[in-house]
């Protein structure tokens, strides 16, 4: 059983609107798949179909060998799901809610207790066990949702915007937790925070208008950026001569002035994404320009994100 989650030609319509349009992909054990996409791209709908909440209009999803349409209960046993909205029943206490989840997942007595304890410990919920979920802060609510998703140690984790609305420390904790869990599970997370994809995902997909427009490692996606292998150069004083000279290099496509946290400088874009840092440094050394900074860009996901989602038909 290679792929833990297999989405096959999935389409979901809401009346006249096609929210997910013929999407296929699979996720293997050890992979963390990031769902990127603007709001309304179909990320949540795809997740709701994978978890068996919504029925697909056509196509299907197979989770650990169980078809979500024909054998939903078997498939749901393998899934831990953090929905986007409510993470737990508002009027229940954290502990009461986790006990309910343990019982409904079929655990009793000592096993239920040890599983609940482990989930509490993993998500640091010790301090709020007796509090009703509705009184918890957003960060704690999210952790309660994570705890219930992890409780049965599922093979598949589906997390819909797990770090949405959390402060930087909480975000870091959640990401660390996901990274810890990753080797033994197949994980899908949706997000519109691009840095999160670089931080936790082994694979990123971009969804827009219900279509899957890009699928690759974050590095592969970054390589599609026009900033991939671009060189950021800061020169003391005027850089006009340098620009003229640099533009004559065969690998250089264009040069733009940039001003960012490092101050003013120029961005040298390569032709076809090739590595131009060698050519540029050679030229800098021969010309003897007083440079104050030189850096090679890896590429920017937000470039790719914008380019891909803005032109759905061309990119598809």
């Amino acid at each position, binding site marked *: 059983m290679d792929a833990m989650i297999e989405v096959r030609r999935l389409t979901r319509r809401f009346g006249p609107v096609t929210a997910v349009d013929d999407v296929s992909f699979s996720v293997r054990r050890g992979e963390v798949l990031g769902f990127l996409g603007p709001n309304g791209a179909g990320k949540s709908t795809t997740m709701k179909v994978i*978890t068996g909440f919504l029925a697909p209009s056509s196509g299907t999803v197979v989770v650990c060998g169980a078809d979500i349409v024909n054998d939903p*209960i078997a498939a749901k*046993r393998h*899934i831990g799901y953090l929905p986007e909205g*409510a993470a737990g029943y508002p009027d*229940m206490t954290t502990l009461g809610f986790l006990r309910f989840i343990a019982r*409904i997942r079929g655990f009793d007595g000592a096993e239920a207790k040890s599983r609940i304890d482990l989930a509490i410990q993993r998500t640091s919920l010790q301090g709020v066990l007796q509090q009703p979920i509705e009184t918890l802060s957003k960060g704690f609510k999210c952790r309660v949702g994570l705890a219930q998703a992890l409780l049965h140690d599922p093979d598949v984790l589906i997390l819909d915007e797990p770090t949405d609305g959390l402060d930087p420390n909480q975000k870091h904790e959640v990401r660390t937790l996901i990274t810890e869990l990753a080797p033994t599970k197949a994980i899908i997370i949706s997000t519109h925070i691009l840095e999160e994809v670089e931080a936790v995902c082994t694979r990123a997909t971009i969804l827009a208008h219900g279509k899957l427009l890009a699928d690759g490692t974050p590095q592969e996606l970054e390589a599609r950026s026009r900033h991939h292998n671009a060189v950021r150069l800061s020169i003391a004083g005027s850089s006009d001569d340098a620009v003229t000279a640099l533009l004559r290099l065969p690998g250089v496509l264009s040069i733009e002035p940039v001003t960012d946290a490092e101050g003013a400088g120029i961005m040298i874009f390569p032709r076809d994404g090739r590595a131009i840092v060698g050519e540029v440094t050679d030229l800098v050394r021969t010309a003897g320009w007083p440079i104050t900074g030189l850096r090679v860009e890896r590429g920017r996901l937000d470039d790719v994100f914008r380019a891909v989602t803005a032109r759905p038909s061309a990119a598809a």
Partner: protein
Amino acid sequence: MRSTYVIFCRELASYFATPLAYVFIVIFLVLAGSLTFFMGNFFDRGQDDLVAFFSFHPWLYLVLIPALSMRLWAEERKSGTIELFLTLPVSMTAAVLGKFLAAWAFSGIALALTFPFWITVNIFGHPDNGVILASYIGSLLMAGAYLAIGSALSALTKNQVIAFVLTAAVCFAFTVSGSTMVLGFLQGWAPAGLVEAVSSFSFFSHFSTILRGVIDLRDAVFFLSVMALFLYANAVIVDLKKAD
């Protein structure tokens, strides 16, 4: 059926987690008492039975059962917990039944707490306790039928107030469908078969038969079929509307 039981326990406990349970029980008992004593002339009748008490139950349920059933699905949909609930490894049957049975058990608890009436008539007279038991069973069956209607209708909307009003209206229709008012309105033009059919849907007439002390199989079957029908509709509605 383990999951039905687990859902049942969670739901029943959730009634008592909020003031709802206590408010409901107190109001149920106060209304049941005042209707019996003031409108039913419990003492003046000079009879050692509980007819005055039970004959108000259809009206009592008409107001109170929708308040109990309105939250069943509307609240889940409103708060978004329905997504969590229906992605747990439970069948739709277990989900619908678990919730319904919890509400039914709760109404049973409220009904059981009216036992002082039974004690009262036993102190002051020698009532036919068989009739009283039959009436309690009949009342419970009728409460179940009202609850099933309310449960199905609460799945239609995210708004609990709408669920309440819809349920009260439909329950009212079921309650009065056997009354002379409704039948008189129909008799002028509707075919006899329709009049017969409408009157046979009346909760009131089925309940009155039970109050006479016999649980006729037909009456029990009637209430149980109403429950089955509406719970089936409930599952269908949840499936259709959960995406909204």
